[in-house]
């Protein structure tokens, strides 16, 4: 906090504050509502990872990928560039970049807890990503597609997913305190 007041006193532009949660939640809800009205479905993210993974797998091992019961249909559907979710994911990158840039919040860093080294952070990030990638395929969606979008349609599926997500988040966070505290 002292660094903050110093930089303000010197008039240097620090990062502008994040939006209050209520305002950011309303903005996110309106973005979701607009998406429903334009596309007929909600927002997502892991669907892009699936198409990218199928594409990577197809380039490395085309025969095995075509024969795979899960990836086969994705490869047949064609390039990931033909999928709505790919352009939505590209849009997320652009939107986050523009927002962060306009508010002085671009922060090139390996963000981590105070007790974790860079290389440990990379290991945790990769393992966490792998669990998430696997879990999203199992659940048929992620926090965006099932939790947020499913929840907004009051789908039972969305709330079952969110219950699992929050319970496991708390349990793993308690068991692995040192990662972020």
């Amino acid at each position, binding site marked *: 906090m002292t660094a903050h007041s110093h930089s303000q006193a010197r008039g240097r532009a620090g990062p502008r504050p994040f*939006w209050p949660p209520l305002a950011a939640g309303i903005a996110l809800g309106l973005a979701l509502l607009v998406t429903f009205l334009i596309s007929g479905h909600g927002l997502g993210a892991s669907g892009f990872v699936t198409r990218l993974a199928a594409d990577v797998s197809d380039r490395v091992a085309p025969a095995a990928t075509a024969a795979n019961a899960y990836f086969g249909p994705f490869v047949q559907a064609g390039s990931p560039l033909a999928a709505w979710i790919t352009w939505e994911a590209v849009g997320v990158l652009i939107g986050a970049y523009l927002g962060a840039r306009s508010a002085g919040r671009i922060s090139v860093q390996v963000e981590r807890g105070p007790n974790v080294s860079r290389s440990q952070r990379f290991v945790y990030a990769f393992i966490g990503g*792998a669990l998430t990638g696997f879990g999203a395929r199992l659940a048929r969606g992620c926090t965006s597609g099932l939790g947020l979008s499913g929840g907004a349609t009051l789908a039972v599926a969305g709330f079952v997913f969110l219950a699992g997500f929050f319970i496991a988040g708390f349990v793993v966070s308690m068991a692995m305190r040192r990662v972020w505290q």
Partner: protein
Amino acid sequence: MSIPFYDSGLASGLLSGVLFGFALEAAGFGSPRKLTGQFTLKDFAVFKVMFTAVLVAAIGLYALRLSGVIADNSVYIPTLFFWAMAGGGVLIGAGFALGGYCPGTSLAGLGSGRIDALVFFAGMVAGTIVFAAVFEPLTGFYLAAKGPDAQRLTDLTGLPEWLILAVLVVVAAGGFVLGGKLERARGGPFTAEDVCTPQAEDTEKVQRHGQALEA
């Protein structure tokens, strides 16, 4: 022309994505410390923002249906596969607590400069490939305990939609009040100053180390 437009084109995807990414970053969801602060109870932004967004969109869809702008069953509603969705939710919750992101927020993290988000993303691609490799033996679990098609809380409980929305508003309001108390008691929530200044903790360590040397 009827609404929804069912437009699955490039421009439709880009527009939705830009709005989504902008809102995630504005909420602070490009930062894994802010995101995981939810589970250490230091920062309730994840609960507050998600719950607010779900309610804004749910009430919006309800109002648009009541006023006849959109028809019943005109938007996609996922169908429950209980074990796969509960299990997948558990894995994503664990991956979030460990890795600091979920799929959408990892893109917001990457867009606002986080290098660790790129590693998380590579992990997701690897996890997806592993899933595809073991998909066939998992099929039974993947399809187990299927619920009715597109089942909603109104179908499950028999309660009117307005009442369910009202209950959720009350739960959200309670979460805002309780969460606000809990996060302040733990010195939170994380601000942009806290998480957008690169390697703040490294700078402190260097300073402490320097002071120790001087002493």
